[in-house]
């Protein structure tokens, strides 16, 4: 076992004892018991595992633990809680923008990154930002509506 890796997760300093090539996704889910990021493909294709690293969206299933040493990771849990929702979470609930919900954490994290760099995106810009995120239930239009609601209601 190599030396433990130090990083920030949702504003908290954590030390993880795992191999440096461990996918960040497994560290978040298994070592830190964070449910938000999901395993969808393990190939960076579907977006279900998306988290922010220093504010940028990354696919945590293809991001090695060593690549985030000393950096700041934000997961869905870092945005808000059931008692203190982030505006995007509030908007997704208001629009009932989920069926199975498995892709939704990745959608919300990608939308967070979008709104951070573009506070008032047009609808087409929202669709393009989410183009590499897959949803199978067909909830796309509600997801777009939820992001628009978050923009509107701030």
């Amino acid at each position, binding site marked *: 076992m190599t030396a433990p890796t130090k990083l920030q997760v949702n504003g908290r300093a954590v030390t993880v004892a*795992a*191999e440096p*090539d*461990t*996918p960040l996704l*497994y560290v978040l*889910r*298994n070592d830190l*018991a*964070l*449910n*938000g990021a*999901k*395993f*969808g*493909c*393990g*190939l960076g*294709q*579907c977006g*279900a595992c998306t988290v922010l690293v220093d504010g940028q969206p990354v696919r945590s299933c293809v991001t090695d633990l060593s690549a985030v040493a000393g950096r700041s990771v934000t*997961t*869905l*849990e870092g945005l*808000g*809680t*059931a008692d203190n*929702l982030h505006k995007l*979470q509030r908007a*997704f*609930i208001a629009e*009932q923008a*989920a*069926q*199975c*919900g*498995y*892709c*939704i*954490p990745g959608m*919300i994290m990608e939308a967070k990154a979008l709104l951070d760099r573009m506070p008032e995106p047009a609808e*087409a810009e*929202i*669709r*393009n930002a*989410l*183009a*590499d*995120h*897959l*949803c*199978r*239930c*067909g*909830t*796309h*239009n*509600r*997801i*777009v509506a939820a992001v628009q609601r978050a923009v509107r209601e701030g």
Partner: protein
Amino acid sequence: MRETLTRRGLGQAAAGLTLLFSLAPAGAQPRLPGSLQTNRRLDAWLRIEPGGVVTVCTGKVEIGQGAVTALLQIAAEELDVAPSRIRMVSGDTALTPDEGFTAGSQSMEQGGTALRFAAAEARAILLDLAAARLGAPAAALAVEDGSIRAPGGAATSYWEVAQAASFAREATGRVAPKPAAQHRIVGTSHPRLDIPAKVTGGAIYVQDMRPPGMLFGRVARPPSYEAKLLSVDLDAVRALPGVVAVVRDGRFLGVVAEREEQAVKARKALREAARWEVPAALPDPARLHESLRALRTDDSVPSEKRADAPPAVRRFQATYTKRYFAHASIGPSAALAVYAADGGSVQVWSHTQGPFPLQRDLVRVLGLPADKVRVSHAQNAGCYGHNGADDAALDAALLARAVPGRPVMLQWMRDDEFQWEPYNPAMEMRLTAGVAADGRIVDWGHEVWSNHHNNRPQNPREGSNLLASWHLERPHPPVYPRATPQPNGAGDRNAVPLYDFPNQRVVNHLIPEMPVRVSALRTLGAYANVFALESFLEEIAAALGEDPIAFRLRHLPDPRGRAVIEAAAKLAAEEPGDLPRGFGFAKYKNVAAYVACVAEVALDRATGAVRVPRVWAAVDAGQVITPDGLRNQIEGGIIQAVSWTVKEDVPFDPQGILAKDWNDYPILTFPEVPRIRTVLLNRPEAPPLGAGEASQAPVCAAIGNGLARALGRPLRALPYTADRVKAAMVG
């Protein structure tokens, strides 16, 4: 049912409860509504708990469509309690009624009807108890949120009057539920119970379970269905870091490790350590339909009508086909399993649609007594039918058996799901019609060739349809079901026209042998049959120079069907456009929701790519339980079916399935998703009808008819992927 109830009784006892169950055969008793017929005890459905809580049990499960929320609304409505007081227990072989599968858009009809009558009867029982306590007639009592008030002001509550034995009896089904006009909770868009956890990272999916001491499992499947294992070196895999067990049973291979990434690495090593012989066992993909038609068929005639009619003066015929498409769930199948330390019992948490049928197959394959296998539902990504969920449950149990006392979390990798899930079958439909001099269709023929569409775990006697059971040293034979009778049907679902043709003959050529593994995917055969039927109808209308909507209406006496057709046409007409449009209509299974769709089709002539920018839909799902949930289902079904129709085609060659990831099997993306407008035609006094599968077939037919307008001729072979459309344009 005797066997089921006995087993459930044992399961209850194992869970420490002491409820008694009627063991008499159901046939000897009065017919009860919905799933009450097969789960007749009131206390199987409802309990008044201390602290102002009501527990409601359902055998139906949440698969991302809001069924459990809708069932809660029904129970709250009939009981007159606030929805927040109800605790739902769902899909557990030790705790809930056996309602078979959550499938076929029947949760409201079966489970909802049962709960409606059970809750109405429970309320009446509680009011009788209150009447005795308050000294007032039950009919004079008022109930609000479980508080009961007599005319003089005396009050009590469900929680004061209920006793342990209050519901320890059979339902009679004789207490009438509320009329729709009195509904205050049913018919409103109650927020889904599961969404807050899903948007905040709450523990809600099976993968979120982390019991102490949990290990991680992975399976190493053969490279193809028929591959033979020549040799495998397990020792090298056992020596890898973190590996706790390597399992080989016949050609079933799997690993268990302390950490998930260790299990993934061990799986890779195990695959590399195995040598396989891979025979060419699948059809030539270029000759798929010929290959299937050459197989033996079990033929039946689900519908035949003969009546006097004017003679046909024009005859038409056409053949339509569709290829395989996949469930393609976003989350690969997963399960948590733990064997007792003595190896004598197992509990499995699974996202199965049928905890009870799965339990029965697990009992047989694992060789345990029936009361030693418990299946509990836990969610995963949407399944849309029979995906790998049940298979993963057996995989997890087989791996957990190697490490008794330690829970094993098993998740398939992406390629496991794409290569091994049972797809929606390839189909071929041959249609014929005769038209009389007055322009009416007087003779209709529809023949369909298909594998069975329901190969779920279900056989009560022998064999198994769980994937790993076929790969064990002592394999279980797969079970080939017989044709499912109409109106449900399977390959022949919706092959019987709703239109009124005086003479018709529908023939179902069921192909038992399945070279490619297939099973239930939303709509079963309805998607392709409606595509064929609605395309053929428009081809005939075009040949006769008739307006396609008027031509449909002329052959459709059903007033509710006519209303949705007219409503969809009107809705689309409000938003004109330049692109070609097509129309499609069906009443799902001829007994569930009516949907009519208009689809706008954009054809890129350079690439063959088909896009569907806008869809308009009209829906009659009977009484609407939750309008927002209904819209979500209809719109989701439209988007998924647009994806099937213009993007999806499972690639394979004679050696095996070639789909391993999302590059091999692309689905519709955000920029490609249509804008959708939906109008709901509510029928408050009509029974609620399932809607999760109602929109897929009509929208496919609408796209086909729109594309025919864009091309100037019909394209009768699905799917409309760019390469296939391009080839058809050139050819």
